[in-house]
């Protein structure tokens, strides 16, 4: 095997316009096989369009991409044999039952009738949808629909799977289930390209992340790199006694970093906190005799990442981002 085939996705200068809109403006991606790679960006950044090009749904109008060593345009049919897509819109048939959906896909992938039926039942059990197997999908809950969607993507286990915002709109329980399934897939050797708007999701799952904004990759690295560039999270503290806030602020400035006084009279947060420093700071507050009502360590949000990377919030226009990209690489 050459080094070339070690990349699950190798895209360079990938671009796509819809009318006047340049949805994807030259995306370069090098996704190693056997891992989860996150593409992080706000709505409308070009994530879905990128996925659709890589999954052979729409042809790029600039650049090129190879998926598992095959060109997405010239060898689209081969690519289709190796990938599957869990789209942002649930890619299952709502007017059929869960079992029928899986049997349908089994048949379309070339399984015999009996094999398709057996595979459907196996997946329904494994993904905890067996009791709803005979119900129409349109009556499913969001989490169940997502699980069915992913099950449908692995009727024949793909070498590469596209997960487009798999947990948007899900409750925490369903979200955890989806994450566990994604981890299990990777453990069994599938590569996953994960598009998400949530830094936390990318942090939880991905080994590498590309941040995408206005159709371009503006930063790339491990989750740790990315968070480091944002300057970690912030420690939020609410005191019992608002009168002692100024005192507490001094202590936090000293142990953690710059303090912001929150709108609530007894609350304040210190930026630049990691778990270690936050634990120390909370312990010191306690030792110094500040009764605490609440404290939490907050992850930087996607907005903060964007602010740090581009100097603007997720939706506004940006200055040149080249220097930032250099800064990260």
């Amino acid at each position: 095997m050459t080094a070339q085939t070690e990349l699950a996705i190798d895209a360079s200068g990938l671009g796509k316009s819809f009318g006047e809109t340049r949805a994807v403006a030259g995306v370069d991606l090098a996704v190693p096989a056997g891992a989860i790679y996150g593409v992080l960006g706000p709505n409308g950044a070009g994530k879905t369009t990128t996925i659709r090009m890589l999954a052979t749904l729409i042809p790029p109008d600039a650049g090129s991409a190879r998926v598992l060593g095959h060109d997405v345009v010239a060898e689209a049919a081969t690519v289709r044999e190796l990938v599957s897509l869990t789209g942002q819109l649930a890619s299952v048939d709502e007017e059929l039952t869960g079992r029928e959906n899986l049997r349908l896909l089994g048949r379309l992938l070339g399984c015999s009738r009996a094999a398709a039926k057996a595979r459907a039942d196996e997946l329904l059990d494994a993904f905890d949808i067996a009791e709803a197997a005979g119900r129409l999908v349109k009556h499913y809950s969001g989490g169940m629909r997502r699980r069915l969607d992913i099950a449908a993507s692995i009727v024949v286990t793909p070498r590469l799977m596209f997960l487009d915002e798999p947990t948007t709109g899900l409750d925490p329980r369903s979200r955890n289930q989806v994450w566990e399934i994604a981890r299990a897939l990777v453990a069994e050797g599938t590569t996953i390209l994960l598009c998400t708007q949530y830094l936390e999701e990318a942090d939880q799952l991905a080994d590498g992340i590309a941040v995408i904004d206005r159709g371009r990759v503006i930063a790339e690295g491990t989750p740790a790199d990315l968070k480091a560039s944002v300057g970690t999270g912030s420690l939020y503290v609410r005191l019992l006694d608002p009168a002692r806030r100024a005192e507490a602020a001094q202590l936090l400035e000293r142990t953690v970093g710059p303090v912001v006084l929150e709108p609530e009279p007894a609350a304040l947060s210190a930026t630049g906190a990691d778990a270690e420093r936050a634990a120390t700071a909370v312990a010191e507050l306690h030792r110094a005799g500040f009764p605490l009502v609440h404290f939490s360590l907050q992850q930087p949000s996607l907005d903060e990442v964007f602010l740090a990377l581009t100097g603007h919030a997720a939706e506004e226009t940006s200055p040149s981002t080249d220097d930032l990209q250099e800064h990260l690489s």
Partner: protein
Amino acid sequence: MTATTTAPGSADTAAVRRAISSTSRPPRPGPLSAALTFGWRGMLKVKHVPEQLLDVTVTPVMFLLMFTYLFGGAIAGSTSAYLDYTLPGLLVMSVLFTTVYSGVSLNTDLTKGVVDRFRTLPIWRPAPLVGSLLGDSVRYVIAGTVIIVVGVALGYRPDGGVVGAVSALGLVVAFSFGLSWVFCVLGLLLRSPNAVMNAGFMAIFPLTFLSNVFVDPATLPGPLEAFVDVNPISVLATASRSLMAGAPDGEAIVISLAVAAGLAAVFLPLTTRLYRSR
């Protein structure tokens, strides 16, 4: 014993991993097998929502009753004489109306994410389209059968007998298979299922009325008669009538089939191309 429990919501990871690792890729299905699977999908939808068949049969049955009893006497002298004339034509109308729904259901499909999945499968590209029309053909047969059965209940007795009725139905369904590609193109071009329905009926309704389905064209003013005579729906109705009567009109049958083949030859590739690019 430990106090640590797994967080609620954990899927059974071992079972998931088993399910992931337990597959091998079967050989690609052939074009026919893929298309038939999509046909099966169409059948499943009918099974889940059988009412949708009513939509397509109620109107023609209404026309059958209305025309036979309201106008039959005036047009043909007696209701039974008119039933003999118009039933083979109503069979045509009933089935052709159903073809509009093929375009509507294709358009509905496109608004759903499932089409993306179909398009990323390693299958013969037109399979979803050909398959859903194969499924729809079953609906055409049902729509046609309903009309014939209601006609027989009202006293219609075709001279061609069962063979005549079945071959007329077969011809009409074959024609519809060709015509439905036109509505598939509409289904791919227009924005909403309602728009497809409106545009479809705006075309099929006047074409059906400006044919010999309801009246003998000889009674019409000259230019109109000329149009009605060349209208393919008239030719199809004539062919259907001849088969029902047990005296097949070879020319009308051949022209009907040729028109169907011509429509498919133009609109099938167009449909496939639009489906791919949308």
